[in-house]
């Protein structure tokens, strides 16, 4: 995967999401967890929709999940991704019960199916930014 770093779309973290991005730099996928009722939520935001508490803790996710849906892009809509086509983007259902959207690497398009077991890996884009992506769980198990 050769994504151009100069022109890529960089996330703009804020006070709510900074711990998430900081954890990624340490190769951890941390999820916001309500300090009052324990509900896990993603993407990061200030209020727990279950109990309306603003008290937050962070828990490190297993990084394990399954493919819930996906798309395979054959057109790059930003110059940073023109050398990444076809680009496989998966909606992943994490074992913690929340979902995330990210790139799936190391799989051919015709291998993708709902329920495919994946795990989160980490790409150090720069000293200041690590992005999560997905690969087949345990690096194999293709059927």
């Amino acid at each position: 995967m050769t994504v151009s770093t100069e022109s890529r779309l960089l996330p703009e973290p804020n006070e709510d999401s900074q711990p998430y991005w900081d954890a990624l730099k340490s190769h951890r996928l941390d999820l916001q967890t309500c300090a009052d009722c324990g509900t896990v939520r993603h993407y990061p935001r200030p209020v727990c929709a279950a109990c309306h508490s603003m008290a937050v803790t962070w828990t490190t996710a297993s990084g394990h999940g399954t493919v819930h849906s996906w798309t395979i892009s054959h057109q790059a809509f930003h110059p940073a991704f023109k050398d990444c086509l076809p680009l496989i983007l998966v909606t992943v259902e994490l074992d913690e019960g929340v979902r995330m959207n990210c790139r799936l690497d190391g799989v051919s398009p015709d291998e993708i199916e709902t329920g495919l077991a994946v795990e989160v890996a980490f790409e150090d884009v720069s000293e200041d930014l690590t992005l999560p992506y997905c690969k087949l769980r345990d690096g194999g198990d293709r059927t």
Partner: protein
Amino acid sequence: MVSRIKLFGYHWRRMDTLKDKCCVTGIGETAYTRSSGKSPTALQMEASLAAIADAGLSPRDIDGVIPFSTGSAVAEDFVTNFGIEDLRYSVTAPMGGASCVAAIQSAAAAIAAGIANHVLLPMGRNGYSGPRAAARVAAFPQFRIVAEFEMPYGAVAPVQLYAPMARRHMTLYGTTSRQFAEIAVTTRRHAILHGNSIMTKPISIEDHQESRMISDPLRLFDCSLESDGGAAVVISGAERARDMRQRPIYIMGAAEGHPDSPSAITQRPDLTTLGLAKAAPRAFGMADVGPSDIDVAEIYDCFTYTVLCQIEDLGFCAKGEGGAFVEDGALGLDGRLPTNTHGGLLSQSHMAGMNHIVELARQLRGGAGSTQVPDAEVGLVTGYGDMGDGSIAIMRR
């Protein structure tokens, strides 16, 4: 008046407050092109002047305006250009492609409350010759979450964000790309009949199947156009409308609806249900009609799949049955649900659905010419925007 009705298996609090209180009294459009040579503000003014003239009003009669939420023209531009002495009402309905139809609810509420008499809904842009959709959306506030957490991985354009919804529908219900093609082919036929359309060449299901894959499962012919042009409507109180130039088109019901997890499709419990599923029962309840009463439907069609999903969310069929519903020309002028009779965003022009409102009024006036659905008395128009926001208006002649 508030009462309770049972619809789609649920009991709904029925709000009659806006029923038949307002009418669409004027409609206007510019030519639809890929190179307007005009400013976006000029396109909006041109369409607005056409709509106001159609209503038999002077531009100075407009006392409310709901500018398109991400458009270049603001309320002040209309005051300045039209010489309006006392603009009394301006809001925006920032719901992306659901904005134009959501604005109908807002306009009707303002008129029914006595705040304004004639509310203008303008839209216009250089969507082809100016900035393209993928470049525009990252700046929308409604895209902030996906801009931070999804766009850095390459999910930049709406087609990439929406394709997983279509894929999920195919996985759960066996929906096929050929069923998406049915929508594209029928809509193209309508665009050609209409005349003021960007796309002028017929397509077949095979053409659709051979069109290049953009973001699987969505092909080029599943995607709407990017267009230059303008469209506008005027909404007025029903009592005034009866003495105005055109046959009044009554707004029987209107509603907006926001899906679960409206900031990120990824987190939505059911990827195949949109905000429209919440809005539609309220609008039908207000209008006191049901899906079987609808003679013509103008359904927001940023993508073919979006039409299929909304047909289900509107209650024309059960969830999962949309694929079968659209087969065999069902959406054609002589089909069971004549849909997007002007060619829609897929083949006429992408005016964020303002052209859908214009077309519904034309149909119900009986002035749709070669695309006229015979004896169309009751119809609906929907909007879809951002991460699945929905809006609907049900109208009658």
